[in-house]
């Protein structure tokens, strides 16, 4: 998976879980987004795992702070 594909996928997942459109190039951070609470975080992880086929560790899940963290995490496990 190439980085632009991963970025698109992450954006789609965030958009579906946070229930709002997210523009390309927009960074989304947990601490700045009131709707990205711990329940949504788990739903996001479930969705990312389903779409990428990756299984994240507990440390990786708790370490995600923003959309870029997810892109790096997926790229690291799923890079070209």
């Amino acid at each position, binding site marked *: 998976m190439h980085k632009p594909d991963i970025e698109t996928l992450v954006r789609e*997942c965030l958009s*579906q879980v946070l229930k709002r459109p997210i523009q390309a190039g927009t960074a989304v951070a947990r601490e700045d987004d009131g709707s990205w609470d*711990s*329940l949504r*975080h*788990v*739903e996001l*992880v*479930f*969705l990312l*795992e*389903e*779409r990428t086929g990756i299984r*994240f*560790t*507990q440390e990786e*899940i*708790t370490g995600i702070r923003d959309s870029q963290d997810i892109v790096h995490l997926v790229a690291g496990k799923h890079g070209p």
Partner: protein
Amino acid sequence: MVAALEKAEWQSVLFAPRPSRYRLGFLQAAWPLNTIRIQVHRNHPFEFVAGLVPAFAAYTDLGVEFSYSEYDDALNFSGHREADVEILWLDYDRYAKFLATDELLAWLFGRLAHLRERSQGRILVCNWASTHPAADRFNRQLNTRLAGIADALVCDQAGLMSGLGDDYFDDRNIALAGSALSHAACMETARMFGLSWLPAAVYPRLKAIVVDLDHTLYAGVAEEDGIARLRLESGHIELQRQLSTLRDSGVLLAICSRNNPRTVDKLFRQRRDFPLGLEHFSAIAASRSSKVKGLRNIAGTLSIGMDAILFIDDNPAELAEVAAAFPGIHTLLAGTGPVATHEVLPRYPRLHQWQAHREDTLRSADMLANRERRRLRNEIPDSGSYLEALGMKLTFHLDPRHLRGRLHELSVKTNQFNTTMLRLSEHDITSRLADPDCFTIAVELGDRLSESGVIAALFARKENATLVVDEICISCRALGREIEAVILLESLQKMMHLSATDTAIIKLTRGPKNAPAVACLEAVFRPDGQQDSDHGEYSCGAQQLLNIPTCHCVTIRWEN
């Protein structure tokens, strides 16, 4: 697009072996939904499940509105709001650290009794899904004892756990969100709530499944491929077995096929490898004419409404045509592959059965006996002689607490002979049974051809010197045997005697389907037809009752 076709497209997502969270997110119902309010009483998060329920529920025409208690181990029910369904979603492992199983059960049932008093809604109690050694015994006790609480039902979460095995738990989320449920467990639970448990809590069970033959019960076309060359694959065998099991549980089966009737007859005589035989079907419509016509005939033969029928066919155009003609009918697109019909049917909405009644096992045999009754009726033109030949017996039960479930079923499922459509809950009926001013009667029917079980329910109460009959329901299976008036008059006489009342008022609400009930009341109480058509009740004096002519070809017995 016709909702039936849109729903057929949804099948590949909703009934997939492992539904996709991503694809589920795109399903938006374009048809109207009946929104129900669901209150969740919990000590661990339900949101992961609730977020996935709407698409499944929408397939059954249900909208869902969840509200949540605090995380409350004590089940205080503080901030309780009126709801159609109450869900108890408890992590029982938390209690097992402090309470023995019997103590936990005693505490839980105390809380359930309290909730029962406060709520009119159905209570769904999720059982203990855990590897804890006490879980099995707890769940068995829960099943047994919950039958004693009206409108309280068990959701078999432990069954989902055993189906998913190790995939049920995911410990990674405990620290983050306080939930040990995996994605798969949340999805399966949501699917059960959306497709099975919630529809079964708020809708009556479907009464009949009508199946197409070619490419539905087997692979191939009987009149093109030849009967011997039709392929019965493992999925078809499984489907036919499932249909047979559903029949045993009270769902009537029927065939609607464009095959020639002789072909259909030959097919079932020749193919002894089919788990289903012609004797399993209560009605058969086989002709070149449209399936709309066939289904109309079947509904007429079975005396049921289209909204109580599931029609299974492999041709989307047939489904669309039928759904356009009968907007209430339920449809399922037959198919093979990962979402094959036999994978879908066990999860299909409104086939889930919370509890079996004796009548469920009698229904199919009773319908078969109807064929014999029709034959007799044709042979014996005189109505009195025909009824005498049937040798009918009616057994009346006064305030029968043990029949609470069946009384509820009659109140919610009958349409043609239902005088007020009160749709009484088990809770309502329990309250009536406990009230000395209320009278509740259940009536069993049998004749020399079959036992029909409890086919009628009457709910009345004493109001000053008057007996008010709030609802009379008679199963459509019992109609046409001229016993409606007998049931009515015998019950009224008994209740007026017991209540020492001299007048009876029979309430009536006209509905789209209850013309047979209206016609019976008119015939009994207004034989000269002098009344206006809009009145909401009939009244009758005790003496007047004795003068109303009725059928004498019925043996009557009272119990209790």
